[in-house]
């Protein structure tokens, strides 16, 4: 996405920007995120819009002196969490927001804020839980706080489940516990250091984050990734997708008490991670994607890659058939945690969560990058039930698609021969948005460089965009369905809390 696609009319206030967004969404564009940047002229609000072939940015400015601005959420519900994060980071109040509650950084009103975009900032900000409100909902209703330390080896997040007994009429989430302040951490870094941090924003999608970051950098620097490098990028991106989807299967099988399935899918996931580490030295594909291309060819040849991919596919396919024929397992997932197609479309639900509810805006298909324009993507038919079962079925469809892509990549690598692995990418000044389709869905990086240093880097993970939907998935479900709903979303809290 090029800098000239950024709407140069800096709206005088937020209202004009919201009108522009409303028009774009009505015309069929998808609202893909909103974030703030503290600039000398004021607080710049940047909105991402996804359309055919491109991501564009529309911006408006809130004057420095203003304590607040009219909220977007009443018009565009998908902005719900984005505006809360802006309030946390900049101390501005989104007036009219239905729930102006801290999301990432609970602080009293007058406290110093991190102010991403403004150099410097406080060295330490302690979260103040007293800034969180306690809702008294009604007699006979209990709030079960679950977290941030929970049973099992899971990421820290607190769910407040409001229940009269078994049903879950309402769920609140507190995601601030593992906030690391990464938006500020990017500032001042060199572009080369930035990619290391991007790989650690949401580590289980390290390759996708590195790709989105590098796409932004390559746009600024005008670099075209060589074909062989594009293939290696696709190799690692699809292996990452396999690992994440297998992880979801392990969690669902474990939740259902299916010891054999848990063990077998745990084994398949281990085989994928070992294949990745044999190819590049890191089980998570770190260090492969670099600005302009990749750091090296895989340490295993295309022939061996093809064999291992074939063996893995055979084993996984057989176990998927067994799992998806186990009635007691399917019963736990069928009609559990449903997301209606209407809600998925309105929210712009990303990745498998959207696809399971009939909404697909896969960046590999609609805004393709690197090798994907030349590879056969073979998108499966849409699913519409939107329950945990369909979210798993979509993942199996994607696994099958990934194996198909991996075989093509291995074949192409065998043909590709020797070629450059990295295009020259010296970017010193500029701004661009990069994207990639992570296993959780689309990841966006909005990157600004000045004098060869990062002055603003905002990562927007699919996990952040999608997790808010958890509020809406509990119609008719009970407490014991909770782990299946959480696992079926397949999101990473690290990507949410950053």
């Amino acid at each position, binding site marked *: 996405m090029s800098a000239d696609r950024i709407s140069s009319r800096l709206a005088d206030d937020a209202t004009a920007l919201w009108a522009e967004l409303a028009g774009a969404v009505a015309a069929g564009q998808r609202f893909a995120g909103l974030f703030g940047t503290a600039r000398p002229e004021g607080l710049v609000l940047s909105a991402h819009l996804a359309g055919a072939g491109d991501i564009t940015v529309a911006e408006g400015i809130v004057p420095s002196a203003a304590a607040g601005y009219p909220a977007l959420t009443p018009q565009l519900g998908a902005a719900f969490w984005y505006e809360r994060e802006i309030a946390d980071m900049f101390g501005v109040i989104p007036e009219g927001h239905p729930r102006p509650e801290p999301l990432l950084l609970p602080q009293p009103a007058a406290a110093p804020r991190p102010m991403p975009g403004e150099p410097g900032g406080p060295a330490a900000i302690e979260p103040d839980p007293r800034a969180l409100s306690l809702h008294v909902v009604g007699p006979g209703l209990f709030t079960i706080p679950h977290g941030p330390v929970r049973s099992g080896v899971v990421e820290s997040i607190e769910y407040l489940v409001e229940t009269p007994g078994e049903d879950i009429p309402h769920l609140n989430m507190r995601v601030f516990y593992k906030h*690391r302040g990464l938006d500020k951490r990017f500032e001042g870094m060199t572009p080369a250091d930035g990619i*290391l941090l991007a790989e650690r924003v949401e580590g*289980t999608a390290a390759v996708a984050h590195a790709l989105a970051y590098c796409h932004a950098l390559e746009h600024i620097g005008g670099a075209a990734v060589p074909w062989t490098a594009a293939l290696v990028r696709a190799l690692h991106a699809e292996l990452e997708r396999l690992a994440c989807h297998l992880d979801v299967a392990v969690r669902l099988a474990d939740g259902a008490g299916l010891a054999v399935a848990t063990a077998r899918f745990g084994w398949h996931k281990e085989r994928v991670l070992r294949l990745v580490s044999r190819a590049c030295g890191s089980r998570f594909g770190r260090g492969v994607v670099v600005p302009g291309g990749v750091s090296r060819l895989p340490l295993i040849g295309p022939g061996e890659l093809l064999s291992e991919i074939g063996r893995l596919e055979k084993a996984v396919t057989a176990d998927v058939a067994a799992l998806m024929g186990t009635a007691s397992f399917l019963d736990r997932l069928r009609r559990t945690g449903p997301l209606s197609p209407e809600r998925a479309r309105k929210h712009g639900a990303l990745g498998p969560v959207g696809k399971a509810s009939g909404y697909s805006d896969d960046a590999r298909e609609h805004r393709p990058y690197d090798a994907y324009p030349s590879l056969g993507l073979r998108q499966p038919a849409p699913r519409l039930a939107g329950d945990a079962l369909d979210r798993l079925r979509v993942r199996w469809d994607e696994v099958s698609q990934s194996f198909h892509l991996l075989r093509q990549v291995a074949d192409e690598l065998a043909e590709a021969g020797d070629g450059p692995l990295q295009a020259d990418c010296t970017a010193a000044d500029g701004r661009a948005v990069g994207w990639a389709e992570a296993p959780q869905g689309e990841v966006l990086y909005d990157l600004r460089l000045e004098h060869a240093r990062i002055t603003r880097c905002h990562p927007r993970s699919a996990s952040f965009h999608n997790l808010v939907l958890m509020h809406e998935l509990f119609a008719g479900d009970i407490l014991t369905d909770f782990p299946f709903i959480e696992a079926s979303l397949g999101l990473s*809290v690290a990507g949410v809390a950053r």
Partner: protein
Amino acid sequence: MLTTRWPARPDPYAAAGRGPATVLDPHPAGAGERLDRLCPTGAISQADGASNAGVRLDQGKCVQCGRCVAARPDVFGWAQGPAVAARSREALVVPEVPETPERLAAIRDRLRARTAALRRSVHLRHVDAGSDGTEEWEILALLNPVYDVHRLGIFLTASPRHADILLVTGAGARGMAEPLRRTYDAMPEPKIVIAVGTDAVSGGLASPSYAVAGGISGIVPVDIWLPGSPPTPFSILHAVLLAIGRLPATSGEGAWR
């Protein structure tokens, strides 16, 4: 057979596992160039002037980016194998300083005495204090049939009251300081804390940040320091066995860790 026999038998994947960077040659010829500038977390230090200390690398800050290894393969290389963890923070700085092994031996003996009751079977409780999500995957891998730590008497528990060892991941996110401390306080003695991953050891790349404490050692006392970004399942297993004194006494380099 699918399940590894490690540590009873060697395992080639364990042996080939990549650890943090290490110093191959602390006194490289013609080291006019500032080697410390290679490292994004400041793990590399280079004494200049009269002292003969040479190049040192603090593995506790190593995020395994590989830049030092790629730029100066004559000076830096990858440590290999699962024996990555150390019983003191200073022991992670390589090459080791000659006068510390006695002190480190004292730490080792104290730890062994404290964990006498945990030698045969031990329960682990994990807390995420601001990780990137990968350390959790590598801990969970220990339960898959390839590592199958149940065969070694190692179990995960949901309750801190039942736990012997606290595995802490993440850079020390300030929001998790109190929940982590309360979890630690709820554990009965004897209890051991393992800082799992470079983020937990030193804050890694997430530090410095307004939201992060630079590792977890300011929140709970750490007994075993395990660098890695993330550490491999074998190195996590090694760290647990080290904590409970189950590894055979080794001689040579690294025995004092």
